[in-house]
């Protein structure tokens, strides 16, 4: 692995801006049942060496946000607005071929299911070689193969020299996910997007993969976007957190902001419904009643309103994503309730929750 690839060095873009800046991103899809707004005005910035977690349930728009960053949602029936800038360079308007050179070499993505993301009829090594040579055909097969083995070793596959010629079925689930990460790292990207990277894995393997991501993030300054529904995973690795609901960011802040001073009732609900091994078990699990809304038929006003026990007249109007706590400009939320009232409302039996379990 050489030093920095010849493509733009991994430094903030012109004007010293952030490594990745997503600004007012909107993604809509035309469906048979009408226009579906999957992502509705998402903005965030990511610095080198940072881990940003995007948390949400299915249909919250977290995966579509990530896929749109690398142009995977471009299609005749999609409508993308807003901007995604990598080191100052706009990605949403780039041609498909220009974007091709960004994917892999500057931003890599790993997916939830390592079973289906690897081609079963090629060896793992060959798939990594393919990724390397697709971006730089001057590298000969032999050195690319050596590089693939080195990468597999770097992500913790034992006996990598030999295992590089194995087929995916000869790898366990955890090893496949490691191989996916190795493939993602092959071109030394500056941003790694991990979409539910551990959801399909056993808990002991999950811990290993999370530590690997964390190590890579520290040792290589790899900026990471971690998409997950699991707040436990978030607590282990993230620096900053975005909580998404119904296509919008409903709260964002540092890890400690979100866990110890959450401002949005939805975040309270998520924190409350966790089963915790380090605390005595409650008689009943606090739950969030109802179901996440359909994006085709979002409630008027605040999208969480129908499920929120603290809903009041003002909620008919969509709250803006604003910093509502004095002196904490980075901690923003979309809830009309005054902060002092929230502090009282979220206290349920000594821990944070949405409401007393029925």
């Amino acid at each position: 692995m050489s030093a920095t690839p010849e493509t733009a060095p991994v430094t903030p873009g012109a004007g010293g801006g952030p490594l990745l800046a997503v600004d007012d991103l909107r993604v809509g899809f035309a469906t048979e049942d009408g226009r579906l707004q999957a992502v509705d005005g998402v903005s965030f910035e990511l610095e080198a060496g940072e881990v940003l977690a995007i948390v949400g349930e299915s249909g919250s728009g977290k995966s579509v946000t990530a896929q749109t960053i690398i142009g995977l949602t471009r299609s005749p029936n999609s409508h993308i607005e807003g901007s995604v800038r990598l080191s100052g360079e706009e990605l949403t308007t780039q041609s498909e071929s220009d974007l091709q050179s960004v994917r892999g070499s500057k931003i890599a993505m790993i997916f939830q299911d390592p079973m289906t993301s690897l081609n079963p009829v090629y060896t793992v090594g060959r798939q990594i070689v393919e990724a390397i040579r697709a971006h730089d055909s001057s590298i000969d097969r032999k050195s690319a193969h050596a590089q693939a083995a080195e990468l597999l070793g770097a992500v913790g596959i034992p006996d990598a020299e030999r295992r590089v010629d194995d087929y995916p079925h000869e790898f366990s689930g955890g090893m496949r996910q490691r191989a996916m990460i190795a493939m993602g790292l092959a071109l030394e990207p500056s941003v790694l997007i991990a979409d539910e990277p551990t959801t399909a894995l056993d808990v002991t393997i999950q811990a290993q993969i999370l530590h690997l991501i964390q190590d890579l993030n520290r040792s290589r300054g790899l900026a990471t976007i971690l998409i997950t529904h699991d707040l436990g995973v978030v607590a282990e690795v993230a620096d900053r957190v975005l909580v998404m609901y119904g296509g919008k960011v409903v709260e964002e802040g540092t890890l400690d902001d979100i866990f110890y001073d959450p401002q949005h009732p939805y975040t309270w609900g998520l924190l409350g419904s966790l089963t915790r091994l380090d605390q005595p078990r409650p008689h009943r699990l606090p739950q969030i009643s109802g179901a996440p809304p359909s994006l085709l038929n979002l409630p008027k006003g605040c999208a969480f309103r129908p499920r929120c026990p603290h809903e009041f007249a003002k909620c008919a109007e969509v709250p803006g994503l604003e910093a509502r706590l004095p002196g904490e400009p980075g901690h923003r939320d979309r809830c009309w309730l005054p902060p002092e009232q929230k502090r009282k409302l979220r206290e349920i039996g000594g821990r944070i929750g949405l409401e007393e379990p029925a």
Partner: protein
Amino acid sequence: MSDLGASATTNGGGPLLEVADLVKHFPIKSGLLFDREVDQVRAVDGISFSVNKGETMGLVGESGSGKSTACRAVLQLLKPTSGSVKFEGQEIAGLGRRELRPLRREMQMIFQDPYASLNPRKRVGQIVGDQLKIQKIASGKELRTRVEALLERVGLSPEHYNRFPHEFSGGQRQRIGIARALALEPKLVFCDEPVSALDVSIQAQIVNLLDDLQDELGLTYVFVAHDIGVVRHISDRIAVMNHGKIVETGDADQVCEHPRDAYTKKLLAAVPIPDPRESRARRERTTAG
């Protein structure tokens, strides 16, 4: 396993289910003309446990530990290689299809994937009500009232009777699966990863529903999952499985707070703590030690 099992059940106290030395091996065959057994996969390798009436037994383990195979072998959906399964004191291992049929009423199962476990071509009413018809318990108008009552009990509405599974969300589908399992008024319900395919906010709803139904109907559960947090919440006792064997059994809190077996400890240590300060402290402890 005492001989008192049979008499104990008659007065309602003793174990509802007793499993002793249950083994399920799958042969690995090879050979050109004649299949020759070359080896075996020891999916379940001699497990014993008992479940008392009205209690919830949690079965935890990682994928491949044999927990699902154990369930299926107990339910006689897979023929056990050897061992004994006693339901209400009666030996059921090795019974034929016909002999098992009346027992099927007593033991039901809720499956993991609410998308794959409901027939997409059947209406909800049929999915929930067919077994009542097959077991000749109800038909016609009575069948419909019973199914509608079941749907209401699991938190759906009677109007859902004529809908198809695709019209429902994951959580609602799992409720249909639960209604189906309860239709025959079973005594014992096997829940095989019933919440792991659901969104976090919905998981709590389903766990609470299972809790309520247990109180209301006096059900006995065997609850299988890989998520120890959920298993601990719902279970009275927990058995931890690894490589086809039970490595530790005990009271749910006891196993989670004071694990004795090395594998249980490893499993518990890997569970992420949803508390940044705690997980930082744990990381420092592990790097220091």
